[in-house]
């Protein structure tokens, strides 16, 4: 009603001036009708003679009835001026929903409006968020996305597309690096490699890779089941033990920390070296407080540079 349609010119047929006057006329009509009933309720005033009382009552009553009819005719005149809204709905198909009278059982139109407003807000917020996130580059791969084809240099090696044989070679070399760590590679779901790393008798790590980049890790206990019922590596279920859930969180932090877009095999090597420090998960005390337990957990954090053991709450 506000804004665009202030003058009443844009939408033909709707005279806003007359509209507001008609609303005022309705209020006037209402008050005059109320006066009629008040007059009837009050009854005859106290006067000297019975005739006098009757006369004054009748005159009062007639007066109020006249005012009612006056107001009613005024209202009729104004309603003719207001006119009908145009036939073509500016809301198109969705406006037809608003014609449904049963508002309690099928509140479709109001829900539609809410959904539309919500999606608009979401789009706006997403735009703000992407602007903020783009300020800091979070890409671990060397691919430049969003750059037009003309500007992209021709001889850029895309480390995202590596032959599977190369990945296998890198992994098998890392497998031979540490005696207490064994890595088993499988590709049950397409070309991404899934590694099952067994560290001594302490833990098992499931690493999901995307060519040579580490995507996700899940750390589980040595005695826990890492296979689903079909015999495939289970990459979704969490460990049952709190200590390994904590180590999983730390491993995820580690895979985001070790980043070198041009040399992903160095990254995998560093990650595995870091992981290997967990062989003494239950034996090493915390370097800061000297104790073994903090809230029932052993020191689960391994420093990224020095590989020293700290409690999660003791690390800097």
């Amino acid at each position, binding site marked *: 009603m506000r804004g665009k349609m202030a003058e009443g010119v844009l939408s033909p047929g709707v005279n806003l001036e007359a509209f507001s006057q008609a609303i005022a006329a309705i209020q006037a009509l209402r008050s005059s009708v109320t006066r009629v009933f008040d007059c009837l309720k009050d009854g005859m005033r106290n006067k000297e003679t019975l005739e006098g009382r009757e006369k004054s009552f009748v005159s009062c009553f007639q007066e109020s009835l006249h005012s009612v009819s006056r107001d009613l005719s005024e209202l009729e005149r104004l309603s003719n001026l207001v006119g009908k809204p145009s036939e073509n709905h500016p809301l198109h198909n969705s406006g037809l929903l608003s014609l449904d009278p049963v508002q309690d059982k099928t509140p479709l139109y109001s829900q539609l409006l809410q959904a539309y407003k919500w999606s608009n807000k979401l789009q706006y917020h997403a735009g703000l968020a992407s602007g903020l996130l783009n300020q800091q580059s979070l890409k671990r791969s060397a691919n430049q996305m969003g750059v037009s084809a003309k500007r992209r240099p021709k001889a850029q090696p895309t480390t995202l597309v590596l032959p599977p044989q190369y990945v296998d070679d890198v992994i098998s070399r890392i497998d031979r690096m540490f005696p207490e760590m064994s890595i088993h590679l499988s590709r049950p779901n397409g070309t991404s490699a899934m590694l099952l790393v067994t560290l001594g*008798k302490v833990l098992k790590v499931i690493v999901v890779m995307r060519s040579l980049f580490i995507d996700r890790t899940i750390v589980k*206990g040595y005695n826990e089941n890492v296979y689903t019922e079909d015999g495939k590596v289970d990459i979704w279920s969490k460990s049952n033990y709190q200590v390994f859930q904590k180590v999983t969180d730390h491993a995820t932090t580690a895979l985001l920390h070790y980043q070198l877009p041009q040399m992903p095999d160095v990254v995998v090597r560093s990650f595995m070296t870091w992981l290997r420090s967990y062989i003494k998960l239950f*034996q090493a005390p915390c370097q800061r407080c000297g104790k073994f337990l903090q809230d*029932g957990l052993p020191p689960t954090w391994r420093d990224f540079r020095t590989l020293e053991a700290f409690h999660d709450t003791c690390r800097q």
Partner: protein
Amino acid sequence: MRLLNLFCCFLVFYDSVSQMPVAEGKSVQQTVEILTRKLELLGAEKQGTFCVDCETYHTAASTMGNQGQAGKLMYVMHNSEYPLSCFALFENGPCLIADANFDVLMVKLKGFFQNAKANKIESRGTRYQYCDFLVKVGTVTMGPSARGISVEVEYCPCVVANDCWNLLMEFMQSFMGSHTPGIPSMFGNKHDSIYSPGDTMAQYMELFNKIRKQQQVSVAGIR
């Protein structure tokens, strides 16, 4: 889930008569209550009850070939943590893990193994869970009398016995204070072997034997 749940467990014998001053007159029940209250203060959650029992069988005299050969004692134990299993152990010998029908088999072997019914001993109590630790505090009873308290502490994520002893010690000190025991003797020679439920039952067997050998000193003082 595998059938065998591997974990690390250490068993402690906490004797109210010997460790606590007699003048205070604390009974077995009260000591158990003190321990459980300390555990609850630490933040442990109660998770039901447990029961470990042990029956003794003598090898029957008729089966003895040599006169000088001493009769062997066999212990048949049950643990509520493994409700479908039955454990049979010799003193320093092997441990057999069988299913629950083993008891019926023992009845059929009456000619070879005789049940010493008076020697039946059991430990019953509550189970607590704190983070990845499982603590079971139980009262050891032989017949109608309470003989002592058993505390079993289990650190579930670790499967190698020797790895986490220090960790367990620290945890036990937090609620048992000065009564924390030393490393059990049976882990001296087993380095890096994976822990199995048979090891738990062997520890319980040692504990029950120790209690049986003790003199029944001032039963009235215990109550």
